[in-house]
């Protein structure tokens, strides 16, 4: 187990060093959530979508979760890129458990999202969102962020291992992102969804990540309970990492 954790961390460290060498990627990724908050959020706030509530307060955790989803869901493209480079062959020829390779990569997707989280927190605060700055709450959000990033990036890795080419992956990536986003409580509450979408949203892990983040980031009572949110994300992440570990070698065949 110690060896597994050590090797997982080596893979994550590999990715973190890349970000430290070239942090522009993190800043560029912050543009999209900024646009959602500054344009979409400001316009929708005038429409009073949330009865008696501030729409920007409601939307900020949703935009944070959306950013995590977008960063993670295209992680598979990096796996295909590494395969084309030859790095994947090299990783697979070392005595490293496949699940440690997958979890390390997934964890690094989450670590990439942490600076993005702080940028969104600051932007939200500048837009007068009532952000909770309590360190315990922030740590709670980071845990949700890591679990969500592990889940979605591993899902992306699994797709990459199955489709194997960048062109096919890009098509499927686009196809996956929007349904996950719209069938969640990111930009509108579950209560106002049509019945069929309500049912789908309950099977969408993004819904649980946003539910927990909304409680910890702005104090909105959880719809499912925080424990449920953590459990759904932890169990589904574990299953996806195990599945990803068994499929990872297929990307080079």
């Amino acid at each position, binding site marked *: 187990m110690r060896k597994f954790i050590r090797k997982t961390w080596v893979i994550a460290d*590999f990715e973190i060093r890349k970000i430290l060498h070239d942090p522009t990627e993190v800043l560029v990724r912050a543009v999209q959530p900024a646009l959602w908050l500054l344009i979409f959020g400001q316009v929708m706030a005038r429409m009073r979508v949330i009865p008696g509530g501030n729409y920007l307060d409601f939307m900020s955790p949703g935009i944070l979760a959306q950013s995590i989803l977008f960063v993670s869901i295209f992680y598979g493209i990096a796996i295909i890129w590494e395969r084309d480079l030859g790095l994947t062959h*090299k990783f697979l020829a070392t005595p490293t458990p496949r699940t440690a390779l997958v979890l390390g990569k997934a964890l690094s997707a989450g670590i990439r999202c942490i600076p993005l989280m702080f940028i969104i927190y600051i932007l939200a605060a500048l837009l007068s969102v009532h952000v909770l700055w309590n360190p315990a709450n922030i740590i709670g959000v980071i845990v949700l962020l890591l679990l969500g990033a592990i889940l979605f990036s591993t899902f992306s890795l699994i797709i990459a291992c199955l489709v194997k080419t960048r062109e096919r992956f890009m098509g499927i990536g686009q196809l996956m992102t929007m349904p996950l986003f719209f069938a969640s409580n990111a930009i509108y509450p579950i209560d106002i969804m049509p019945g069929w979408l309500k049912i789908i949203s309950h099977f969408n892990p993004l819904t649980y990540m946003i539910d927990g983040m909304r409680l910890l980031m702005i104090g909105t009572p959880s719809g499912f309970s925080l424990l449920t949110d953590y459990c759904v994300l932890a169990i589904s992440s574990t299953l996806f990492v195990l599945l990803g570990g068994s499929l990872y070698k297929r990307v080079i065949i």
Partner: protein
Amino acid sequence: MAIIETKKLTRKFGSFTAVDSLDIIIEPGEAFALLGPNGAGKTTAIKMLTTLLPVTSGEAFICGFNIVTQPNKVRGVIGYVPQMLSVDGTLSGMENLLLFARLYDIPSKECKPRVLDSLTFMGLIDAAKKPVREYSGGMIRRLEIAQSMLHHPPVLFLDEPTVGLDPIACKTVWDHILQLKKEFNTTILMTTHLMEEADHLSNRIAFMSRGKLVASGTPQELKDSINKPGSTLEDVFIHYTSETLSEGNNYSSISRERKTAKRLG
């Protein structure tokens, strides 16, 4: 006792047999080159031996470990330099090696000294902190070899180690491979398209054609075997593989080779 032994090793892709009942025995300290035309099955054979590709039938042993039933043990005793690039251009040479030292289970305290020794051995110590994207093609290949040798494996697999390199860079890489073999008595199994490379680096050569082993022996034995005065390894190559010679590879392998050559500058 053989350090690498394959018994009827076979790999099929659908109805196509890429490697057909391959039998090889390699003794410790040997440098063994697999030659053959495009699509002969050389890279597929190496991928099976490095546990990257499942075996369809047959078996193989590296240092006594079965590649099918003990893949993790095999990974601990081999070094592998794939045909494509296997270092990250954003990171420095030192960072690339440090990360792999940890993946090869080298104790934390020994990682840095081992990496510095490897960089010195490969003549890269002055460029240790430079990003790899600033390295020349020959330096990248030497770094990849250093990366594969960090844990001092008894067996090293080199898949076309000088593809895309100019003659001077080739010569430097060859010198370092020979030095490595001498210093650590490493057993080397390599594939190449260059007859000169095989002649220069290996004690024994095997020719593959359509997935099968068609001839093997020392370079001199192979030259003598075709009964042509003053024959070269090119003549031997044509003699044993002429039935299958084609104008080139398929789209994906050509694309891979050209990408590698481009990245190596």
